[in-house]
């Protein structure tokens, strides 16, 4: 399988001097479903945000579809980002806009400023967006305002927005951390099914090791800003998990409940 993302020697130091990531090396192949696990504060979120440069990496290189992300100009970055969907923990929807508009925002990366400002979305894009919403079971919610939805529904809109980009890679930053178990399953299923169907690679930050094991073909464990495990889900031993959450057992306990 061809590789679509290649991270070499990535490091991130925040202004305050905190070293969030050190020497991260990671390769993602087309269609892979990778879970990134680790205790809170380990740098999972920073890693994901460095990939689409919502956070500027300090050192190292990130190659996406044969393009160097960290060196990309403003315009190139926009093009790169349009091929990379992101799903946020707090959904980050435009709550005053309709559900359909929120999904269509996924198309903005392919549109000019003027076309975007005046809402000139293609009819084909609109049909596609409605289809995506039907697929995740939100056909009755299309014209509701985004703030009228429940948490699980909001996140499904977030998933649709990412899918509407027609991406090669989806970055999901704790997509189910604010959801109850039932909604979590619905959202994870929606992400997983669509990625598999369309051959989209996916990097999911997760708190829940059991969820990670259930979905991911590959697990990357991050502790204190470095990768301590990278391999198939089956190879992640209990000892490894124990070491990963050392000193943060409370988080493990919370997950179990």
């Amino acid at each position, binding site marked *: 399988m061809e590789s679509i993302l290649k991270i070499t020697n990535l490091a991130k130091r925040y202004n305050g001097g905190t070293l969030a990531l050190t020497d991260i090396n990671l390769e993602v192949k087309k269609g892979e479903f990778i879970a990134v696990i680790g205790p809170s504060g380990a740098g999972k979120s920073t890693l994901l945000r460095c990939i689409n440069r919502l956070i500027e990496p300090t050192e190292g290189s990130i190659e996406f579809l044969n393009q160097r992300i960290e060196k990309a100009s403003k315009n190139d970055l926009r093009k790169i*980002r349009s091929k990379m969907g992101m799903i*946020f923990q707090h959904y980050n*929807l435009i709550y005053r*806009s309709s559900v359909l*508009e929120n999904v269509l925002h996924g198309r*903005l*990366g392919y549109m*000019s*400023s003027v076309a*975007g400002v005046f809402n000139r979305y293609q009819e084909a894009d609109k049909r596609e967006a409605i289809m995506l919403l039907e697929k995740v079971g939100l056909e009755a919610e299309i014209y509701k305002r985004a703030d009228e939805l429940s948490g699980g529904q909001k996140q499904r809109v977030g998933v649709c927005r990412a899918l509407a980009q027609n991406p090669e890679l989806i970055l999901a930053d704790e997509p189910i951390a604010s959801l109850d178990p039932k909604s979590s399953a619905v959202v994870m299923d929606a992400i997983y099914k669509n990625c598999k169907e369309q051959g989209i690679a996916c990097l999911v930050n997760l708190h829940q090791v059991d969820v990670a094991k259930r979905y991911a073909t590959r697990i990357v464990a991050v502790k204190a800003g470095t990768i301590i495990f990278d391999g198939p889900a089956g190879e992640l031993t209990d000892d490894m998990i124990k070491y990963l959450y050392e000193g943060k057992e409370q988080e493990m306990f919370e997950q179990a409940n």
Partner: protein
Amino acid sequence: MSKSQMPIPETLLMKESMLTKKKIPIAHKQTKRQQQYFFTTVGILFIVCLLQIDISFSQFQEGVARIPSVLSMMLQMSFTEFPGLASEMVVSLVTAFLSLVLSIVFAVVLAFLAARNTTPNRHIGMLLRFLFMIIRAIPATVWVLIAVASIGFGTMAGVLGLIFPTCSYLVKSFSAQIEEVGQETIEALQSVGATWWHIVFRGLIPTLLTSFLAITAFRFEMNVAESVILGMVGAGGIGLLIQGYISFYEFSSLSLGILMVFITMFLLEFMTTQIRRRMSN
């Protein structure tokens, strides 16, 4: 193990306090000290300020004695000037409204350029914030006086003079809103590869529109109050008439003018409160 250790320091403290008969302190020391400093400073400043003004007891006494007669003169309200006052009140409202609308046009654009998280260039943002800080530091009265001095007496000077403080107030309030609630929205649209214009028009404006309107409604109220007063320095409107009545001791017309200003402000406040309440839902 912690169970056996915990009570020891408590009992020690209790014994010590019983021996010395001291009260056990409960306050956060630093906070308490800060409060003490604050109240002492205010107290000292108050005394210093009292010494600064000439306190003349006789003047005070005479003034108090005059209050009943002034009040009785003001209670004789005359409605002969009503048409003139009403039309000038409208002029004041028009001045306030025009300057507000023109300011909104400038402020919406400038707020996005000035807000820390949306400014396209850090230096431009800083420059704009600094510029508006200076404009805000100069009172509206001074701006209107400058306008009157440069284009002459009248409503146009009032509108022009009010634009500066209104615009800088709106830029400040709008950009504070953008900085406070914008980050999630910005990240969401950045991640799909949106341009600056997309982020502003498809993300931030829909999200912030209601709070922008609430701020604007409040500012309209302030602008009317300003334009009433600014009439007195030559910007036209009801303030000019009131100023005249004061100068010529026409108390009966003056009290009508004041009553009209009061009623207008009261109605406006009622309206803007209603608007803001509806917006927040």
